[in-house]
């Protein structure tokens, strides 16, 4: 058994202090009968349960759920973390919850859709673990609270996030895109570098990239000073875009690709019903002028877009856009069911024209990474933000690059490639950008 609950703990330092709350009854220690009796007691008496760890809170809630015989909530449950605790902590709690149910011979299976929902929520000073049945409206069937001040910084979502960048490649010739792929064992395999004049193929050999092939790029009918391009590589198949041009190819042994002039979707496909394009002679995206559908888009154009929220069920999403007018906007898709029209809100920030969204394992939502509002004579920066139409909150430290960032795009949901021009060396450099949870 646990130590009986100490009445109080006194701290005498300037450090955070909090009177220790009365602790929860002991959690399961291998004695099924006492647990069942405890569960019965919880069901019969409305005593307040306060746990002494978040896992204890989950176990206590499991006992409450197991004891609630009157409610028919099926054999499955959903688990949702709506509080400022990390995904890892939430998962540990969920495991403790299931483990306790197993001990009590109540088997529930995690499912995406179930009548019983377990939610972690929070108030100003407490984390709440709530069991809710939602078959006929919402009904709370059990809850456990835990003082926020008693869980460690590592368990918080609000911990500092770090934006890391790692140099992948540098060359004196201009480039504005780079893509890499690995072999089945996870070792680097192929790298493609999209330059102003050429597409170059490199292969990993003896722990370094060796040039294998190079091919000239097609030229746009309308040359432009600020040329943009982007390349994607999957195994040895690749696709790259230049304004008004799309090319598909293969890098199996040598480079081979075919190109066609086209206006239409490049990568800014955040609204599946509304096509955007980066047309010849332009360096920004705009709604496809040939589109004849019912949707409207009020922005004249945008340089880049970062999806930051997405709810597939209701087709709701929020996209942060670096507008062609130099301002930053949030595009809200609206919700037809709730009669909320789509809208574009301007954010009170001064960012550069490169935006992407990145995921990180200690945060559930996608975060927006934005370049700084610098010109090409100064060192650029990247910083991660939590974007809400009402507020923009920086969530990472500022990462500085040796010069202006020329291109920023996602290589995956958790990784981006940034191309920067090094003002000191005159080289073009490609960086791998990731977000990490600081300890």
């Amino acid at each position, binding site marked *: 058994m646990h130590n009986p*609950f100490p*009445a*109080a*703990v*006194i701290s*005498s330092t*300037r450090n*955070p*202090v*909090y*009177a220790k709350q*009365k602790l929860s009854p002991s959690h399961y220690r291998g004695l099924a009968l006492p647990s069942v009796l405890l569960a019965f007691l919880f069901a019969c008496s*409305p005593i*307040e*349960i306060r746990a002494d760890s978040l896992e204890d809170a989950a176990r206590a809630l499991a006992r409450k759920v197991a004891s609630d015989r009157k409610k028919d909530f099926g054999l499955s449950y959903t688990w949702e973390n*709506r509080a400022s605790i990390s995904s890892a902590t939430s998962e540990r709690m969920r495991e403790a919850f299931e483990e306790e149910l197993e001990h009590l011979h109540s088997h529930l299976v995690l499912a995406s859709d179930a009548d019983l929902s377990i*939610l972690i*929520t929070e*108030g*100003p*000073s*407490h984390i*709440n673990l*709530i069991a*809710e049945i939602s078959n006929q*409206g*919402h009904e*709370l069937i059990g*809850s456990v*609270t835990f003082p*926020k*001040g008693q869980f460690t910084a590592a368990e*918080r979502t*609000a911990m500092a996030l770090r934006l890391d960048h790692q140099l992948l490649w540098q060359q004196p010739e201009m480039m504005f895109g780079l893509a890499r792929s690995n072999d089945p064992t996870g070792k680097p395999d192929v790298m493609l570098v999209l330059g102003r004049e050429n597409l170059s193929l490199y292969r990993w050999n003896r722990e370094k990239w060796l040039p294998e092939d190079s091919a000239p790029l097609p030229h746009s009918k309308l040359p432009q000073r600020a040329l943009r391009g982007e390349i994607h590589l999957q195994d040895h198949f690749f696709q790259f875009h230049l304004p008004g041009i799309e090319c598909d190819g293969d890098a199996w042994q040598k480079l081979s690709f075919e190109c066609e002039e086209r206006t239409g979707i490049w990568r800014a496909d955040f609204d599946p019903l509304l096509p955007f394009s980066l047309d010849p002679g332009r360096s920004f995206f705009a709604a496809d002028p040939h589109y004849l559908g019912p949707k409207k888009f009020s922005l004249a154009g945008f340089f880049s877009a970062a999806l930051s929220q997405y709810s597939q069920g209701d087709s709701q999403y929020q996209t942060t856009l670096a507008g062609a007018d130099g*301002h930053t906007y949030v595009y809200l898709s609206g919700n037809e069911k*709730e*009669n*909320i029209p789509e809208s574009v*809100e*301007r*954010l*009170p*920030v*001064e*960012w*550069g024209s490169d935006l992407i969204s990145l995921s990180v394992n200690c945060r559930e939502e996608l975060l927006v990474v*934005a370049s*700084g509002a*610098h010109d090409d004579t100064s060192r650029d*920066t990247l*910083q991660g*933000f939590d974007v809400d*139409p*009402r*507020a*923009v*909150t*920086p969530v990472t*430290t*500022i990462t500085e690059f040796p010069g202006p960032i020329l291109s920023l795009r996602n290589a995956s949901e958790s990784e981006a490639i940034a191309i920067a021009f090094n003002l000191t060396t005159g080289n073009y450099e490609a960086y791998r950008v990731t977000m990490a949870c600081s300890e």
Partner: protein
Amino acid sequence: MELHAASVSLDPRKWRVGSTESATDEKMGALVFDRLVALDSYGRFQPQLAMEWSHDAAFKRWEFTLRANVKFSDGAVLNSADVVAALQPLLPDGQQISASGDNVVIQSASAMPDLLEELASGRFFVYRLLPDGTLMGTGPFFVAETANRSSGPSSSSTAAADSAASAPGGNKTTHLHFRANEETWSGRPFLDAIEVTLGVPPLRQLFDLQLGKADLVELAPELVRRAMQDNQRVWSSAPLTFYGLRFDDTPPAVADAKLREAMSLSLDRQTMANVLLQKQAEPASALLPQWLSGYAFLFTTETNIDRAKEIRATLPANLAAATARLRLGVDAPGDLAKLLGERVAVNARQAAILVQVVNRPVTHDATSTSSDPANGLHLFSWHYSSLSPRVELESMVSTLKFGESTETAMSSTDLEELYAREKKLLEERHVLPLVALPEYIGLGQKVRDWMPARWGEWRLADVWLDLTEPSLAHADNPNGTATPAAQPLAVPPGAKP
């Protein structure tokens, strides 16, 4: 700093819990006074005037050890008798405070598991009452001067602040001048002084922010979008002001449960929040907000005009009809409340319930329940001020009197009991939630280290002003809104404004 409120009281004993006025009072009070404990943004209780605390196993007796050598702004040393004298009038009935040497003890016949949340918020400031009625504080600032535009500078005390603020002619702009308390135990604030102008209309506040005449203004919800479009820095809190409808029990018409149900089904809260308030508010389905209770999502509201009409059809034809309209008294102050009242009437009319909106005089107490008995329905506002959901709910119920009169206030902080209590109140439909509104603050470009709590504590003692040239500031701090990340530039914190 510019505020909309025409008056401020710096006497916590006079603050009316739940009123919008008390929200401003509390913010100004936090400049002058301290509490025993504070809650930080991570949910941890931090020592303020109390260094340590403990409680018995039943949570009925709490003992607080006071910080040594704390001085009031007049130089007097804080002692336990001061704390007892200050807090006893503020504590709810049943809680007694007494001095025990250098400690203070708070006791009650019922458990007080949420006493720290209670003491870390609301009006529980420690002050010392001087014979002339002035209240002295230990906080980071003190009132240096108060002035009424018509009468010029006056004296420098909290009593003067109260009297100036409550002087006749409330439309006249009143100024409060706070100066840094050099001797404060928490360390001298970075700002040397804070100039507060009261009674500034919302649009004027926005203009003054744009022109750089003010560093901090309150933004009315309808001006938030405009301010953002103008690239102004805008901060918003968690939803802090609740708007709802309250039915009186006395007129037989509104005592009808079916009428209340029909009214509830007719209300289109989404439109109120998204159209009327331009998405600057949230539709409310609970009395306590999610950030405070943690369970508000369990309550849902339904708009169903057809069902509302069906229910209306079962009621007597003359009830809430053309000859005897239901009178909706708009008790809450401000144009926003009037707009909401009119929207309620429009919604009700769709369900064939005729409502006559009766706007109240501006000076009327927003949370008063001694309203015109002829009104069966009231639109009220409630400003959340406690960090304890139990205290907030009980304050709401007792002040607005929408619970059963025979029901005693609950002392348990158990979430399930609190949920059950709120659920019962909502199911009775004597009160119908409408919307919940955050607080919006416009910040000047010079303001740094603006790190408020999401429940509306401004923490102005930590704020400083960046007085470098704008172009230099811009280059070093490209992320204009990122106040927490903003680093001091050429001028260190504490530079004279």
